[in-house]
C-alpha cells in the first residue's frame, strides 16, 4: 500500500445535514427526511420526494443567490468548512499554488426555465439569470472568490463528476501542477432535473430503498462535498484526515443512460484503482456504493461487488442524502473518510427485503469498521464509472 495524497480537510452539506458533523449524526441515528420539493413546483401529477437542505445557507453577502447560482453557493459553503477543517484561512492561501477541481451537473447547465418561458412567449426577458449562470461556473467561481492562482476545472461527468474531480485533483498534486487542491462536487435541486429524472421513470414516489427488492428508483437531493488535498511539502507534518490511495475510471461505451449489464466499466475502474493504490480487495474494510435505488444500477453494482469484493460490507448513503448527482461522489468520499475515522458504518437506510437477483446485500444496521482502507464508487450517465480508494488518516 502506498502513502497516497494527503487529505487534510473535509466539508459537506446535504439533506442529511448542514455540515459534516450534522450529517454524521443523521447517518448514525438512521434519520432522513425526504419530502416534496419546497423550492420549486411543477404540474406533474405525481409528487416525488426529494432531500433538500434543512436550513438556509450562511454565506458572505456577495455570494447571495441573486448574484450566484445555488450550486456554487453550496460549493463555497462546503469549501469554507473543508478549509477550516484543514486549518487554512483564505488569506493564507494567496500566493500559493492552489487548484480547484469541482464536479457538477446542474451547475453548468443553462437550465434557466423561467427565462426560457418568457423568451418563448415572445417576451424580451432580461438577462439576470443568464448573467448569474455565466458568473457561477463552480470551479472558476471558487478560484475567483478566494483569489486563488492555479489550475481550475469544472468536471461534468454526470453522476461520477464529484469522484472524478477528486481523482483529477490528486493527479495535479502528484504532477506538481499545484501544491494544494480544493476538490469535490456540488449540485442544487432543480425543476429541470426533477422533470428529467421523472421522465426516465427512475424516481421513487416514496423514500428510496437502495438494494431492496422493492426499490423503485432514486430520490433527488442537493448538496456539496469538498476535500482539501495537500502536497507533502505544504503539509509539513500536519495531521491528515485521510489519504487518497488510488483512483480509477472507465467508460462502459455501452448505453447513454443504462449501466453495462456485466458492469464492465465498473470492473475496469476497480482494477485501475486497486493497481494505483497498490492494495488488494482483501484489504478493503467497506465500500460506499453508488446505490441509487434504481433497479438497473443496484443490480449491476451488487453483482460486481459480489464478484470483485466478496463479503466486503457495503452501504449506500443515498437514502440519507438523496442522489445529489455531481456532488454525490464527493459527499460519499467525505462520508467514507469520516466513517474510517469513526470506525463505524451507518445502516443502508431503506433496505429491508433482499432481492434474490442481487447476490450481495448491504448493511442493515450500524456496524463497526474493521480496517483502515475503504472504497467509494460512482456510476453515471454516459457509462462513466469512477472509484476512489481512501485510507484512514493520522488520527
Amino acid at each position, binding site marked *: 500500500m502506498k502513502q497516497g495524497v494527503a487529505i487534510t480537510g473535509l466539508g459537506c452539506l446535504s439533506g442529511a445535514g448542514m455540515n459534516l458533523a450534522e450529517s454524521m449524526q443523521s447517518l448514525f441515528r438512521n434519520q432522513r427526511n425526504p419530502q416534496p420539493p419546497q423550492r420549486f413546483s411543477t404540474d406533474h401529477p*405525481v409528487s416525488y420526494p426529494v432531500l433538500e437542505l434543512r436550513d438556509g445557507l450562511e454565506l458572505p453577502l456577495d455570494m447571495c443567490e441573486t448574484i450566484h447560482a445555488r450550486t456554487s453557493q453550496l460549493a463555497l459553503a462546503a469549501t469554507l468548512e473543508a478549509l477550516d477543517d484543514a486549518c487554512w484561512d483564505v488569506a493564507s492561501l494567496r500566493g500559493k499554488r492552489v487548484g480547484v477541481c469541482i464536479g457538477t451537473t446542474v451547475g453548468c447547465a443553462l437550465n434557466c426555465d423561467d427565462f426560457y*418561458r418568457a423568451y418563448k412567449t415572445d417576451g424580451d426577458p432580461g438577462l439576470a439569470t443568464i448573467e448569474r449562470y455565466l458568473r457561477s461556473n463552480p*470551479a472558476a467561481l471558487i478560484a475567483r472568490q478566494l483569489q486563488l492562482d492555479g489550475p481550475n476545472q469544472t468536471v461534468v461527468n454526470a453522476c461520477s463528476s464529484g469522484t472524478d474531480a477528486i481523482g483529477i485533483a490528486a493527479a495535479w498534486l502528484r504532477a506538481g501542477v499545484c501544491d494544494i487542491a480544493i476538490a469535490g462536487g456540488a449540485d442544487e435541486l432543480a425543476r429541470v432535473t426533477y422533470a428529467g429524472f421523472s421522465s426516465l421513470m427512475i424516481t421513487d414516489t416514496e423514500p428510496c430503498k437502495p438494494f431492496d427488492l422493492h426499490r423503485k428508483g432514486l430520490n433527488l437531493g442537493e448538496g456539496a462535498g469538498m476535500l482539501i488535498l495537500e502536497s507533502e511539502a505544504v503539509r509539513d507534518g500536519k495531521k491528515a484526515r485521510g489519504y487518497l490511495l488510488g483512483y480509477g475510471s472507465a467508460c462502459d461505451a455501452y448505453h447513454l443512460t443504462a449501466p453495462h449489464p456485466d458492469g464492465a466499466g465498473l470492473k475496469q475502474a476497480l482494477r485501475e484503482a486497486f493497481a494505483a493504490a497498490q492494495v488488494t480487495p482483501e484489504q478493503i474494510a467497506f465500500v460506499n456504493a453508488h446505490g441509487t435505488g434504481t433497479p438497473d444500477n443496484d443490480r449491476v453494482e451488487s453483482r460486481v461487488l459480489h464478484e470483485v469484493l466478496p463479503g466486503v460490507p457495503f452501504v449506500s448513503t443515498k437514502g440519507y442524502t438523496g442522489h445529489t448527482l455531481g456532488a454525490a461522489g464527493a459527499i460519499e468520499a467525505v462520508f467514507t473518510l469520516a466513517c474510517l475515522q469513526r470506525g463505524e458504518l451507518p445502516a443502508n437506510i431503506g433496505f429491508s427485503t433482499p432481492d434474490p437477483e442481487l447476490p450481495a446485500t448491504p448493511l442493515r444496521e450500524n456496524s463497526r469498521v474493521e480496517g483502515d482502507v475503504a472504497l467509494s464508487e460512482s456510476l453515471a450517465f454516459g457509462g462513466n464509472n469512477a472509484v476512489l480508494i481512501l485510507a484512514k488518516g493520522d488520527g
Partner: protein
Amino acid sequence: MRMAILGIGICCGCGNGVEALRSALQTGRVAPQEVCLERNGEADRFPTYRSSVEELSEFIPKRALRRIDHFSRMTLLGACLALKDADLLEADRSRTGVVIATGYGTLKTTFDFLDSYLDFGYACSSPTHFSNSVHNAAAAHVSMQFKATAPSLTVTQFEMSVASALLTAQLWLAEGRVDRVLFGAIDEYCEVLRYCRQQFFTDGEQGPIQPFSFDQQSAVVGEGAVFLVLTKAQEYAPYGYIDSVRLGNHLVNAVELPQDDMLIVGADGHKECGRYYAQLLKGREATAYAPLFGSFPTAAGFDLAVAALSLADRTRYPNPAVNGCANDAAEAAGRQFSDEKISCLKFGPGGDYGLIRLSL
C-alpha cells in the same frame, strides 16, 4: 510532459477536415452565413459561422444517428475526421481516453427538453432530450461509437474549457492511464444564444470580427468541433508536440509570455476579454484566427489546430483579412519557418487565462 499530435479533425464554418482549414488559412477568408430569425414580428438578420455535419454519414450509418443531436453529431464528425487523419479509424481503442471541452454544452437539446414540459406539461417531459442534454452525452456517443472504454471526461468552463481539459489529457498520458487521447472542443449555435448575445452586445454581432480592435465589440457567433489525437511524445508527430499547458488568473498573478514564441491569441472580437490582450501584447506580433471560424468559448481548440497545422506546414499563416485589409500585426506573417515554438493564449472575461505551448 510533451504530447505528440497525431491527427486533427475539424468541423466548423470554414468546412470540414484539415484541408478545409489549410485552405481557409491560405486564403485568409471565410464568409459567414447570414441567418434570418423571425421574432416578435420582426426579421433579425445576422452573420454566423455554422457547421455542416452531412459528411458524418460517410462514417456512421444514418440510422445510428437518429436520436443524436447536432452537438453530438459535430462531436462525432470531428472525432472521425481526427482518427482518419491519424490513420487510426480501425485501431483498437480500448486504451484511448476521451476528453471533451465545451463552453456551454448542448444548448439546443437543453432548450428542446424545456420545450417538452413547457409546451405539454411536466408529465410529458422528453426522456430522450433529457438524457442527451446531459453535458457528457457527446463524450458518451464518442465512447460508444469507437468502443473507447478507457476514461472519459467532459469539462465545461466557458473560455477556459480547452486549456483545463487539455491539462487532464496530459496527465492521463503522463501517468500511463491511457495510450492515446481523443481530445475535442465543441460548442454550438442556437437561437436563444443569439437572443442573449444581441442583448449583451448591442453594439456588435454584425461582423466582421476584428480581433485586434480590442476596444471594439465585433464578435460573430460561431460553432464547431475540433479534435486532436494525442499520445505521449514519440518520434512521429506529424503536427508537432504540445509542450505545456498553463492556467491561471492574470489579475492574481500576471501571465508571463514566452519571449520568442510565435503567438496565437484567442481574441475574437469580445471587448471584455480584449482588454487583457491589449495590456499584454503592447505591440508584440501576434495572430488571431477567429475570423475563420467565429466567436465561441472553445474556439481556443481551433487555435490549437491552427498552431499544429502551422508546425506541420512550417508556415506562419497570416492574420485573416478583415474588410479586405490585413491587420497591422500581420505584417510579418505568412512566412516559412524551420524551428519555431508557438504559444496559444486565451483569456476569459475574469482575467482567467490558458497558455498552451507547442513546438516541432
